[in-house]
């Protein structure tokens, strides 16, 4: 028996979207819906707790969020058993403070601190707003994670991390749920 076609007619642009939504809501599509989602968190260096008297510091973003429940973000930890499909970095305020002469940010987890974003210049003078992805980073491609705990690592030059007095960004982690692993 040959494959049958998808049970809905998908239009080229937006004309068919309402029908798709209705069919998903009415459970008339015999497959799991796997939408894309973004886990997002706003990170402010001034809310990051005790800053390190060293030129680098890794911040566990789960710990950060639990310590800062008022911080804008997804309101929950990054979910278990999902496929990471990319990341987003948006700089709200550039990093500066004390005698720091340069500052970079890395995004990943404890096992690979720069697995999603390798060193991104976030020091005064660099660009605000969205930043390019590090598509060649080791963990950037779509892949399954059973229990991923995102982290950011701040690295400073000339002076220690605890001399920073400004620095704020949004971090996003794109993911897809995996229906069969819940």
């Amino acid at each position: 028996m040959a494959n049958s076609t998808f049970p809905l007619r998908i239009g080229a642009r937006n004309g068919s979207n309402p029908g798709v939504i209705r069919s998903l809501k009415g459970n008339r599509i015999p497959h799991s819906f796997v939408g894309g989602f973004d886990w997002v968190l706003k990170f402010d260096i001034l809310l990051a707790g005790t800053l390190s008297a060293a030129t680098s510091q890794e911040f566990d973003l789960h710990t950060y969020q639990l310590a800062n429940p008022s911080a804008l973000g997804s309101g929950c930890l990054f979910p278990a058993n999902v496929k990471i499909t990319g990341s987003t970095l948006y700089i709200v305020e550039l990093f500066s403070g004390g005698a720091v002469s340069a500052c970079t940010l890395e995004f990943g987890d404890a096992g690979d601190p720069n697995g999603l974003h390798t060193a991104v210049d976030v020091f005064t003078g660099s660009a605000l707003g969205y930043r390019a992805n590090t598509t060649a980073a080791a963990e950037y491609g779509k892949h399954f994670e059973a229990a991923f705990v995102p982290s950011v690592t701040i690295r400073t030059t000339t002076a220690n991390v605890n001399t920073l007095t400004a620095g704020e960004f949004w971090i996003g982690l794109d993911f897809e749920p995996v229906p069969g692993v819940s």
Partner: protein
Amino acid sequence: MANSSFYAMVAPGAKNGGNTAMMNAIDSAKLPFAFAPKLTYEQTIKWSDLIALTTVAQVDVLTITGTVVFGTYTVTFTNAVTGALITSVSTTVHEDTVTIGGTASDGNYDTLFVTPVPPVRARTVRSTTPATNDNLATQHAADITDLVPSGLAGIVTSASAATNVVTIVYAAGIAAQNLTCTETTATGTITASCASTTTTIAAALEALIQTARATTLAAYVANETTSTNTVTVTYVAGVQVTMSVTFAGAVSGAIATTNTGTVTLGGVGNYFPANVKVDGAIANVSTAFDVASGTPTITMVLGGTFDAGADADGLMTSSSLATAAVLETPSAASFGKHFESAFPPVVVITSDVLFTTLVQGEVSVMIHYTPVPTF
């Protein structure tokens, strides 16, 4: 605190039974994540769109091959849309060479010019002096030159010699074989052949096109160059020109045309969005691009100016539009999911036929993307 399962946040029923709960969770804003579904941007390009392009870049390469003979070599330019004659340029081959070969011996060395009626004979007598082939060639050139004012008037304009070879220049317009060569002694040889080559014809035609570019071709030809036996003509952007040739004898002029059309995707109501993550591309050639007669070679690439810089085939490398098929280049440099702040997708279509000759063709170009949260 460990991560919790995404599905635990939604509802029981992880597989197909959970869609209703999932959609309700999204719709009711109970889900603590930004919903960012993968979307597909799409634009269709039809054959008629290519004909309507006003920025087509056309380059024709004329390659001349064969053994050059006396005659007229003409290149004609016509308007590919209206068929109207633009202009023709012609060059006439009118040089000949006579080579004194072998070992010269005493006797008569004759070149017979057959075009004049009656024929004219140029004769050089060797009786020890001139002693060598080179000297014999010099003397023979002088003997032909002596005939220029009289028997060869209007036929030959000059004759000169260098290293055993006599070069005869005919008056412009002499288009037929003009001489035969005979040698009356046993050991020497004398042969005649056309002095022009495919390279000299190419250079002559290029010079004529260059001159016409200042007048009749001004609105059509942007530049022309020559290299050995080829002439490359680059046209003014947007014009569509048909180049044709008529050459003498068995000399042939093959014309390869390359037409390049650039289509920047997007328009009112359907611009590719800013600040999204590009996540692959695909194209569906629903109707093969074709012409009335023959099969064109026609391809497309997809790319544009990315945040990281221009890359014409960053999303799709050269893929044929001549066959109905679904096209994809997963190995393209920017195919993977990545952020783009302001990406205007560009399709570049290249063809070996004029776009004006297309009679069918349709391709839907699709770019997958996901929106990013707005901060």
